[in-house]
């Protein structure tokens, strides 16, 4: 064969090799722990809609965003948190309804306003044999506060001052100021193995995690999927589901089609428009539950002159028809809120009711304030940040237009909108949602309404004083009274239009028994077969 032909043939062979390399799951790139992950889609495709037979060996969960790290103390984002909560435990945990209960701690009590004593569960080990005890707690807390380590959630634990080991299974956590929220906050502070990390380093731990949790890592292909297998020695009992594969499917259409093709057992974040399609798919149902996020229309009371007037803000609240938005746009999967607070939060006051939809009153109030016409307000929104956000923004714009406000929607990039809210340069209104695994009145209301806070465009001394008092009040009755006052204040002053509580909407195979959790974490050891 001529030299040219040989070279061309060689190139063709190289291309073929490149294309076929990595098939059959032989690609080791990204798979750093345990065995190389092999995709089992072939068998699942064959077992479609054959519920019981397909998933007794293990289930597959389609998640909507990337896993950022396997180090639980550096985790941010619901999906990354879901993975870590299945491999690691904390001193306390949140149940599906949002109540805080003990987990690795057996009990705790206040020795005084700033000292909490935790009695630890005995006989718990990490999956590599390392023992969990008071030293583990001290190490874990100090690591998440360590500036050199630089955890992304470090700021949320800044209320903790120090940790004292009393004996092997008793530890004191001391806070800087009285901080009744500590048990809730600790639901996100993972207990990590001191010896293992000290020996191997943070970087190694982030790809080879070892925890006390119900599952351990089998394999991880970055950007593709992560497989966990059951920890048979889990101190709460071996989980019923023996294996779980988290498939990352960011595109929502593909995620829905993966359900319709029978490839996954649970899929998170099902768009409202596809709920009908899932219900129609044999073997699957939609299961939804309230999530720990409060959604609101922020108003720049500092930078926008019209919005600095309370009457204008109240008028906007009267002009919004949330009932229609929830039933038409969100398919009924949302609950109205009155003053940002959520029913599952300690201190929620149900007697503070949402604004009634009253467009005539809105028009009157605007006229009285001198804005009968000519008021132009932008509604800033990040397209797709939350389900139906663009549609909701457009709907609100329409509702404001019908009371005489020239409202229009402007689409922003996420980082740009957040930056503009932070330095109060956001033109007028902005659609936003805040919350998370340890959201509560003290944390979330401070972020949204506190003077100078990063997501606040309001300065109100009364709010700041009341909030600081409520946040450090140990007496439950007094505390609830304060939160009641705060919610009434928020409704009256209307620095934001409190809109709704987000719901998590999931597609679930009919043979699985599972309830969505408030903190949006899928705790696989709580899933059972019907």
């Amino acid at each position, binding site marked *: 064969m001529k030299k040219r032909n040989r070279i061309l043939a060689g190139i063709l062979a190289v*291309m073929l090799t490149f294309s076929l390399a990595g*098939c059959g799951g032989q690609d080791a790139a990204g798979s750093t722990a345990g065995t190389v992950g092999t995709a089992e889609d072939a068998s699942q495709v064959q077992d479609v809609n054959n519920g019981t037979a397909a998933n007794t060996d293990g289930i597959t969960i389609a998640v909507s965003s990337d896993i950022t790290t396997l180090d639980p103390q550096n985790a941010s984002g619901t999906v990354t948190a879901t993975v870590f909560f299945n491999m690691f435990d904390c001193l306390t945990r949140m149940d599906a309804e949002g109540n805080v209960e003990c987990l690795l701690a057996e009990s705790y009590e206040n020795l005084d306003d700033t000292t909490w004593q935790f009695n630890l569960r005995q006989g718990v080990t990490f999956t590599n044999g390392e023992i969990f005890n008071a030293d583990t707690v001290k190490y874990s807390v100090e690591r998440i506060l360590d500036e050199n380590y630089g955890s992304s959630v470090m700021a949320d634990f800044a209320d903790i001052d120090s940790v004292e080991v009393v004996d092997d299974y008793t530890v004191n956590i001391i806070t800087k100021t009285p901080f009744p929220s500590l048990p809730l906050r600790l639901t996100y502070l993972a207990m990590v193995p001191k010896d293992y990390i000290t020996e191997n380093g943070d970087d190694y731990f*982030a790809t080879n995690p070892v925890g006390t949790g119900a599952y351990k890592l089998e394999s991880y292909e970055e950007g593709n999927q992560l497989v966990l297998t059951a920890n048979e020695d889990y101190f709460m009992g071996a989980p019923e589901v023996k294996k779980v594969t988290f498939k990352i499917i960011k595109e929502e259409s593909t995620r829905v089609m993966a359900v319709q093709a029978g490839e996954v057992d649970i899929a998170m974040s099902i768009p409202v428009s596809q709920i009908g399609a899932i219900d129609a798919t044999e073997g699957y149902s939609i299961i939804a539950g309230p999530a720990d996020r409060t959604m609101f229309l922020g108003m720049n009371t500092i930078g926008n002159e019209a919005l600095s007037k309370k009457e204008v803000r109240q008028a906007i609240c009267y002009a919004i028809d949330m009932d229609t938005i929830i039933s038409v746009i969100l398919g009924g999967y949302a609950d109205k809120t009155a003053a940002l607070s959520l029913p599952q939060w300690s201190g929620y006051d149900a007697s503070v009711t949402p604004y009634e939809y009253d467009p005539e009153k809105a028009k009157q109030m605007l006229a009285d304030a001198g804005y009968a016409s000519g008021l132009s307000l932008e509604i800033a929104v990040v397209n797709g940040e939350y389900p139906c956000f663009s549609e909701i923004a457009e709907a609100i714009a329409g509702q404001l237009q019908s009371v005489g406000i020239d409202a229009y929607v402007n689409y922003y990039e996420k980082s740009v909108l957040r930056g503009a809210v*932070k330095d109060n340069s956001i033109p007028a209104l902005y659609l936003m949602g805040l919350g998370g695994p340890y959201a509560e009145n003290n944390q979330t209301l401070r972020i949204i309404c506190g003077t100078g806070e990063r997501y606040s465009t309001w300065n109100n001394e009364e709010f700041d004083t009341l909030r600081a008092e409520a946040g450090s009040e140990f007496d439950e009755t007094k505390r609830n009274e304060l939160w009641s006052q705060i919610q009434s204040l928020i409704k009256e002053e209307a620095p934001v239009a409190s809109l709704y509580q987000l719901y998590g909407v999931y597609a679930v195979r009919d043979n699985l028994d599972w309830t969505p959790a408030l903190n949006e974490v899928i705790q696989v050891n709580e899933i059972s077969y019907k």
Partner: protein
Amino acid sequence: MAKYISKRLLQAIFVLLGVSLVAFIILHLSGDPLSLLISSGATPEQEAAIRTKMGLDDPLYIQYFRFLAQILHGDFGESLYYKQSTLSLIMNRLPATIQLTFAGILVATVIGIPLGIIAATKKGSVVDSVVRIIAICGQAIPSFWLGLMMILIFSVKLKWLPTSGRGTFAQMIMPAITVGLFSMASVCRLTRSTMIETLKTDYIRTAKAKGLHKARIIVVHALRNSLLPVVTTIGMEIGHLLGGTLLTETIFSWPGIGSLAVQAITNRDYPLVQTAVLITAFMFVIVNLIVDLLYAVIDPRIDVTNAKLE
């Protein structure tokens, strides 16, 4: 030859510098990575402290030179969002993009070249028109629509193929077709037009006059001489695809660098974007170099080493 290659690599360095500078400037024009990185409960003071620690409040030119200095030491920085080395993040996903690119090019050539030959030999006939329509469809159909439609038909309705992900051969079929179809159109049309030109030439008429078998004329004589522009196109398509399989990767959840890079841009994850841009540009440069060298192999009349440097 070696001198030529080293000169080209030197030029490549300047290309990479220019690319990284442009990317750096554009990235910093708007948006702020910190807002997406730290917990929403962080106070302004805490945020300021983190910003200083990350060096994000230094003047832009200092940040840029710090970035260059680190690269010279082989340190491509740590991703702000994924909290691991950007180089390892990209290297973990690069095989997936390379695999998809080559599979797509394979689809494009295996379908495009034969179709182009058939259309050229049967120029003006119904077959020719059909092929040209196929080519236009390949270029006109939006890849995301094609991808979603294929999943709907082949995964949901027929249940022949898996919807998404990477690992088995079956999972590669639809992404490869989605990515390859657009390139197929260019390859097909170019093959057709160069073949038509070649078939008119004297030496082909000589071969026919000699009584050589028609298929032998087409494949052995005509095709070989038509290949040059096609090779250029394929080379450019490879470079193009290496950097931009984003839509296909998103639809099929293919864990490549396209979706990683776009996610990084949304997050203003400066180190990750910079590294992704550099690596993509580098690959493009290398592919171009290989294509240029390939000319000399395919057509001995061409002498790239001297011609290029005028």
